[in-house]
């Protein structure tokens, strides 16, 4: 006899979404989370893109999660010798509409986990799933770090990038380092009126040729970014673990590039540095390019008794370095399939294949994991064509991003799909934007279970 119908490993961004839906369908659902509080082990400079909110789970669109700042504009600054010589801020929307919402992971994931618990899911924190119960090649449950065996009909693996349950199940392999980015980020306190006056509702990217030594070490793949929060800013930079077959000395280079940026770039020195105070330094690794490497892309995301979602399934948006909307989309599909499987009394891979097939049919997931724009920047930098570089950035973080071959296609497909389901969905989107904006202005969000 199983202890639960569904066990979800991980209360990050995807896990609680899957657990909430399963619990609402009457399934006995448990989330295990290794942190003491959901989200406090999630490291991310985070601006969740708008498409996650518009096409993701209804309860997020209709809810009041704690967001740090609506981001209505992307400002691209091109740097030479520390000076800004060109600025592209063509990608912008008038508030209350937003391109995304900045958030700290801990309150946001806690908000999501609260919704799952409210729906009837059980949540065990400070519990690490370190192994699987396997019978005849099928997953039958988990073994926790305390040695406890918890049995279930279906396991939903939402354990994030580094967790190796799917490897233990024999379904997936360790990500290759070419697919991975190590990013380092800093959190600075800044008075809200200063963030408002220096950045308003924008986030900034700083792009330069390799010799500028401010963005990605060795000039490949990434740029220096500053995300803006309510009363803080969140700069960071990332780099492949392997570049041209070699492992760069990232422990030295990432801090060095940050030091170069803060000591040389005038925008930082004059407008920002006098107003900020360092609060935190962190880093993490994520599988940004898993969708671009054929061997990684081919790995299954389901097995006998197991469904894998979000970063654990390699569903990162490769151009944006973001995994939250895909975690939400895949969690939603996984919950639907888990519910159908439990009701049908069949949790074998022959039944669960439909999860992978629905993930592949989703207008965003497959498209956005195979987006080469960030990956290909390395070739542009190698060619040293300034004109090409500026044009590519415009297609990436400027208005060109909405071209049909980039996000235009999944966006128009998703809008059409949403309209077919609910002809009045546009009004709900406008209402969401308005409510999210008002919540932010008033600094009023749903109370979290961790607040007194």
């Amino acid at each position: 006899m199983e202890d639960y119908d569904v066990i979800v490993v991980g209360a990050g961004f995807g896990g609680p979404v899957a657990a909430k839906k399963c619990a609402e369908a009457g399934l006995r659902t448990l989330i295990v989370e290794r942190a003491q509080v959901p989200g406090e082990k999630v490291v991310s400079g985070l601006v969740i893109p708008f498409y996650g909110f518009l096409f993701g789970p209804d309860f997020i669109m209709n809810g009041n999660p704690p967001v740090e700042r609506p981001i209505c504009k992307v400002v691209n600054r091109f740097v030479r010798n520390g000076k800004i010589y060109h600025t592209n801020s063509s990608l912008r929307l008038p508030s209350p509409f937003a391109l995304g919402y900045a958030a700290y992971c801990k309150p946001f994931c806690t908000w999501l986990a609260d919704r799952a618990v409210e729906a009837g899911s059980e949540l065990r924190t400070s519990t690490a799933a370190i192994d699987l119960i396997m019978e005849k090649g099928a997953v039958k449950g988990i073994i926790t770090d305390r040695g406890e065996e918890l049995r279930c009909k279906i396991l939903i693996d939402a354990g994030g990038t580094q967790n190796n349950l799917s490897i233990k199940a024999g379904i997936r392999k360790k990500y290759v380092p070419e697919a991975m980015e190590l990013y380092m980020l800093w959190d600075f306190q800044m008075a809200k009126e200063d963030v408002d006056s220096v950045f308003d509702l924008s986030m900034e990217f700083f792009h330069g040729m390799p010799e500028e030594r401010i963005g990605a070490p060795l000039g490949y793949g990434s740029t220096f970014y500053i995300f803006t929060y309510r009363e803080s800013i969140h700069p960071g930079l990332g780099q492949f673990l392997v570049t041209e077959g070699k492992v760069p000395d990232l422990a030295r280079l990432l801090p060095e590039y940050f030091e170069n940026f803060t000591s040389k770039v005038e925008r930082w020195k004059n407008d920002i540095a006098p107003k900020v105070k360092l609060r935190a330094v962190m880093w993490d690794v994520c599988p940004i390019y898993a969708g671009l490497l054929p061997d990684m892309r081919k790995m299954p995301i389901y097995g006998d008794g197991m469904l894998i979602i979000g970063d654990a399934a390699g569903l990162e948006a490769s151009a944006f370095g973001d995994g939250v909307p895909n975690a939400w989309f895949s969690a939603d599909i996984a919950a639907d399939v888990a519910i159908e499987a439990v009701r049908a009394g069949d949790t074998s891979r022959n039944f669960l294949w439909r999860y992978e097939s629905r993930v592949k049919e989703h207008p965003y997931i497959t498209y956005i994991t195979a987006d080469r724009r960030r990956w290909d920047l390395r070739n542009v930098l190698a060619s040293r064509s300034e004109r090409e570089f500026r044009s590519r950035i415009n297609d990436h973080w400027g208005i060109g991003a909405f071209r049909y071959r980039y996000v235009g296609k999944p966006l128009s497909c998703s809008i059409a799909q949403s309209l077919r389901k609910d002809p009045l969905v546009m009004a709900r989107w406008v209402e969401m934007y308005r409510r999210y904006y008002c919540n932010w202005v008033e600094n009023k969000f749903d109370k979290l279970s961790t607040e007194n």
Partner: protein
Amino acid sequence: MTRTFEEFPGVEWVEGTGDFIKVDDKKCDGCACCMKVCLAGCYEIEKKKARIKSLEKCMECAACWYVCEKGAIDFSWPKGGTGYRSDWG
């Protein structure tokens, strides 16, 4: 018990993780890639072998595990409720 370190503000480490990263001496060829990608300075090279100096500042990113071509590094989770945590991630 929690610990903090001046060079990494805003992060706390809860003690009692156990040895959640291990290096297999027999497989390690001393390439030092693990050391190159570890921002926490967990590794050192001793007699041409990687050795874990201390996991006290580890952020559990697993960069070392990913870059180890020889498969000499074993990575698992620290005990539930231990290891790093932050309000600002």
